[in-house]
């Protein structure tokens, strides 16, 4: 006997009840799949973004090192700064291949709906970011009053190489030397100026926000960090440590959310269990007839189990659909609350998350379907036929 059409038909007898069970399961699966996918996507995006930064550690001013490094990586300013003398010390270290000074300043103009992110850099940044590509007609800083624009900054300000750009807040007139091609990182929205120009614009001569460091051999990160940690007024944060801290934070939050979602899955499963038990009771006589005309105990068991599996699998599939649809919205909603959110899109529903959820739904179907199926298989035809509900 082909059980699938019969199971489908049985589910259709109470479409409203079936629909409610499906909705409960679908919603919990959608949230679960979104959470699992987001975690995986965030981790891989973060790895990708940190790889593209081309450095292993940063020297930041004293304070919370993770907060400091995260702010610098996103082009945000810090409350305090480093003396430029720290740069010479870093460059003199035997394990340091590149030490790139950074001075960042943020000029928010909420009345105009704009925030200018100014970043002072020197030639070392080119070594640190060899993947930077410039648009046609662009070149490196040609003088102290030149500026290189990130792709989005140039688009927003309608600037091309050779155009002028003015900073009203610092009364500085600059010439656009180049425009970076879009990289999908925070560089896209920044205004890069020579380090000395940034220090002059913001009246911070001899001060740095951070120093980005690439080592000759990344394996020496430990000894190099220990030596650089001795720099006066500075502290070292390695990107491995920083990423670990962020992933730990995210992991803790995700575990809590997954636990809550699993409770929702359990509630949805109980709803399916209730549906299946009600179905067995409602169809006792019918099962008796089926048994009387030759349906085996195994057949009755398999029929009810198929119904439960069909319900949970269908709920899971609808949940995937909801997760795909709501994924970008969920991303946008939680992005501001996570540390060092990657600039580019975080991948949506991942195959791994889909497989996990589908496995979970199958397990749920088996778990909640077994007892009602067993009850159905134990019905004696004679008793069942006399059953009056």
């Amino acid at each position, binding site marked *: 006997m082909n059980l699938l059409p019969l199971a*489908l038909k049985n589910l259709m007898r109470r479409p409203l009840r*079936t629909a409610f069970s499906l909705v409960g399961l679908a919603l919990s699966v959608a949230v679960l799949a979104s959470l699992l996918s987001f975690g995986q996507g965030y981790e891989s995006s973060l790895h990708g973004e940190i790889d593209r930064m081309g450095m292993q550690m940063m020297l930041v001013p004293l304070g919370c090192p993770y907060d400091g490094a995260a702010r610098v990586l996103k082009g945000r300013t810090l409350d305090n700064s480093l003396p430029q003398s720290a740069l010479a010390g870093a460059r003199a270290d035997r394990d340091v291949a590149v030490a790139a000074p950074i001075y960042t300043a943020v000029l928010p*103009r*909420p009345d105009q*709906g704009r925030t200018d992110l100014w970043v002072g850099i020197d030639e070392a940044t080119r070594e640190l970011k060899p993947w930077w590509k410039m648009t046609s007609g662009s070149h490196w800083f040609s003088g102290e009053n030149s500026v290189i624009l990130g792709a989005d900054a140039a688009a*927003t300000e309608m600037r091309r190489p050779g155009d002028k750009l003015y900073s009203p807040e610092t009364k500085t007139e600059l010439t656009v030397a180049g425009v970076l091609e879009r990289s999908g990182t925070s560089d896209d929205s920044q205004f890069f100026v020579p380090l000395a120009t940034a220090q002059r614009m913001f009246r911070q001569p001899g001060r740095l926000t951070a120093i980005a460091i690439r080592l000759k051999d990344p394996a020496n990160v430990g000894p190099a960090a220990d030596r650089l940690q001795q720099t006066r007024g500075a502290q070292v944060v390695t990107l491995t440590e920083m990423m670990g801290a962020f992933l730990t934070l995210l992991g803790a939050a995700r575990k809590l959310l997954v636990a809550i979602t699993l409770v929702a899955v359990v509630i949805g499963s109980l709803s399916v269990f209730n549906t299946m038990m009600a179905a067995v009771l409602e169809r006792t006589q019918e099962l008796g007839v089926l048994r009387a005309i030759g349906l085996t105990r195994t057949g009755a068991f398999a029929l009810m189990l198929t119904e439960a599996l069909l319900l949970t699998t269908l709920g899971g599939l609808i949940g995937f*659909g909801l997760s795909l649809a709501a994924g*970008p919205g969920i991303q946008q909603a939680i992005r501001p609350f996570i540390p060092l959110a990657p600039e580019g899109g975080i991948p949506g529903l991942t195959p791994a998350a889909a497989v996990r959820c589908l496995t979970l739904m199958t397990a749920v179907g088996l778990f909640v379907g077994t007892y009602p199926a067993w009850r159905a298989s134990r019905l004696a035809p004679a008793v069942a036929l006399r059953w009056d509900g």
Partner: protein
Amino acid sequence: MQARSIGFLIGCVAIVSAVIASLRFAPSNEVTFPVSAIHTTSSGVEAAGLCPWRSPKDDLQALFPGADHYEQHLVILSDLRLDISQRLGPNGLLDANGIYAYRVTRGGKSVGSILAQRAAGEYGAIEYVMAVAPDGSLAGVRLQRQREPDAIARTITSPAFLKAFAGKTAASPFHLGGDLPAVAPAARQTARSLVDSVRRLLIEFTVAREHGR
């Protein structure tokens, strides 16, 4: 009964598809906003051709006092390319395939439209909004954002300069120092760019309206 089962399955799939479609691929080109819900848009990076309307509440108060509602409408221009280019005159190439227009109403009655646009100033982008009356004439122009040096900024933000746009139509000449105030040489490039942009946007919108958009 098997047909009903299949129908049920198809129904489930259809519901999910409809939800996905409505959330992700909504082809709607209209969004409505009550004025009570208006808020200033936050800063952020946006596509060069799509200029956000940053201060609807303030702009409506200044340009269409008493307006209580507006709705966003995407005006497609790509098939009007030839008409628009001819109206723009020499070198008048269409540079956008569509513009967002905000239809403004007061007590359910249309009072005009608002358009937001970005023009290339000498030292950075200038974002402005312009109000178009139901008869197609300009009801006003307001600047949203600019980053010009003080001397230029004073000129282009001066009420005398901005008020001179009022009453202009797509057929008006838009000459600096003629029907529009003369400006100092230092401000000429930026003012010219702004004036050209306003004229272009007004022509694009007028042609679209003439074609029932």
